[in-house]
């Protein structure tokens, strides 16, 4: 379970998160929507300790992410994250990209790591591309590779940061299919997305971010289908 308790985060004098609280239960899919600059990416970075916080705390399975004595490298093994920008390792083949962390971080043997990697890449439809360098992949394929890479660590949680926002429209579907597959397998996920229809379809809950706070949260029917706050209504109008 991920427990976010009243976190505050500033970059210099810019306060980006102004008291965000959110609990995500095992098996739950929470979508996060909201305008550009509202702090969605920053929150994901805070969850696996890539960014520090100034106030509040985040517990992952009871472990305080930002406590001094927390082994972040160990904690990160159970939190997969896929970023907004491409971040394939360009100097490694697709297979090597996916095998790398299981070998170097989990200490798996080459054979074990390769077997898992091939399996994960097959799951996301990249079985034909094992020996290829990422530069030869389309944006959608790169993003699916990044998902397979995170999944190869067998994480308990997956965080997605607008994984479709830099994609051509015809490539969005294939990546969303991958996320659907994960949610149907019961993966616990936080999905930051601009795809409102998708959020409505896969989420157990939807959180609307506005100016560093969760402005409205609830079931998709509630937040997307029948929003109460004027800001939520305005935002949905602007993206639909």
């Amino acid at each position: 379970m991920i427990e976010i308790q009243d976190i505050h985060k500033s970059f210099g004098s810019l306060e980006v998160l102004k008291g965000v609280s959110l609990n995500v239960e095992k098996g739950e899919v929470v979508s996060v929507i909201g305008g550009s600059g509202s702090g969605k990416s920053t929150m994901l970075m805070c969850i696996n300790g890539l960014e520090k916080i100034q106030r509040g705390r985040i517990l992952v399975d009871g472990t305080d992410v930002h406590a001094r004595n927390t082994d972040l490298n160990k904690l990160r093994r159970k939190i997969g994250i896929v970023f907004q920008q491409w971040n394939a390792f360009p100097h490694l083949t697709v297979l090597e990209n996916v095998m790398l962390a299981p070998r170097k971080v989990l200490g798996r043997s080459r054979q074990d790591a390769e077997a898992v990697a091939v399996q994960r890449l097959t799951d996301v439809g990249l079985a034909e591309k094992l020996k290829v360098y990422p530069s030869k992949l389309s944006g959608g394929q790169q993003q699916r590779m990044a998902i397979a890479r995170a999944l190869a660590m067998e994480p308990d949680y997956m965080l997605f940061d607008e994984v479709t926002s830099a994609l051509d429209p015809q490539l969005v579907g294939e990546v969303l299919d991958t996320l659907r597959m994960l949610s149907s397998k019961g993966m616990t996920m936080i999905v930051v997305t601009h795809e409102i229809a998708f959020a409505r379809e896969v989420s157990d809950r939807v959180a609307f971010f506005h100016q560093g706070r969760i402005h409205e949260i609830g079931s998709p029917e509630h937040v997307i289908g029948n929003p109460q706050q004027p800001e939520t209504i305005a935002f949905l109008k602007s993206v639909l």
Partner: protein
Amino acid sequence: MFSYTFHWRAAFQALPQMLAGAVVTLEIAVLSMIIGIVCGIFLALASGSHSKILRGAAAVWIETARNTPALLQIYMAYFGLGSLGIHINSFAALLAGIAFNNAGYLAETFRGGLRGVPETQARAARSLGMTAPQAFRIIVLPQMMRIVFYPLTNQMVWAVLMTSLGVIVGLDNDLTGVTQNLNVLTFRTFEFFTIAAGFYYVIAKIITLSARALGWRLFRY
């Protein structure tokens, strides 16, 4: 006008000796590059670190290496350290001097190379549970090496040519040292130095061409 007559036969007889000298030259150049690359990476990291002391120390090294003659740097390694009671032989002094110089130049090259690797790469690596040193070694460093590969090759050629400064600290078994000895014995200055120049040229060319071939193999992405 030409009172000098060429005597190539004597010069060609000395070829094996000069070849042995060329091997020593290459040895010093290769070692100085290995040391220079390692130190250069640490200097590049130090000059980007938060510690004022590290940044300052790196700046002194880099500034000195780049803005004073290599000859003086080698001289200082031999006589300067000697006057401090640290006596090293001429081979070590030349090696230290060139490595110092290499590190200074390469640090600047690496600094640029590091800027060329997006920060998101290290972040993606850390998010997979890699430690900071792992992320640097496995993800950032190889990508930086691709960016700096050609400047690195130039520095290697430069290192080979700098080894000729070994004569000033009394090195006599590298290519220039051997040539100088032969010259003193026979006074066939022009012949020996022409052949020596030929050796340097060939070494430099071999480095450039094999680096190109290596680059093709290493950086296929």
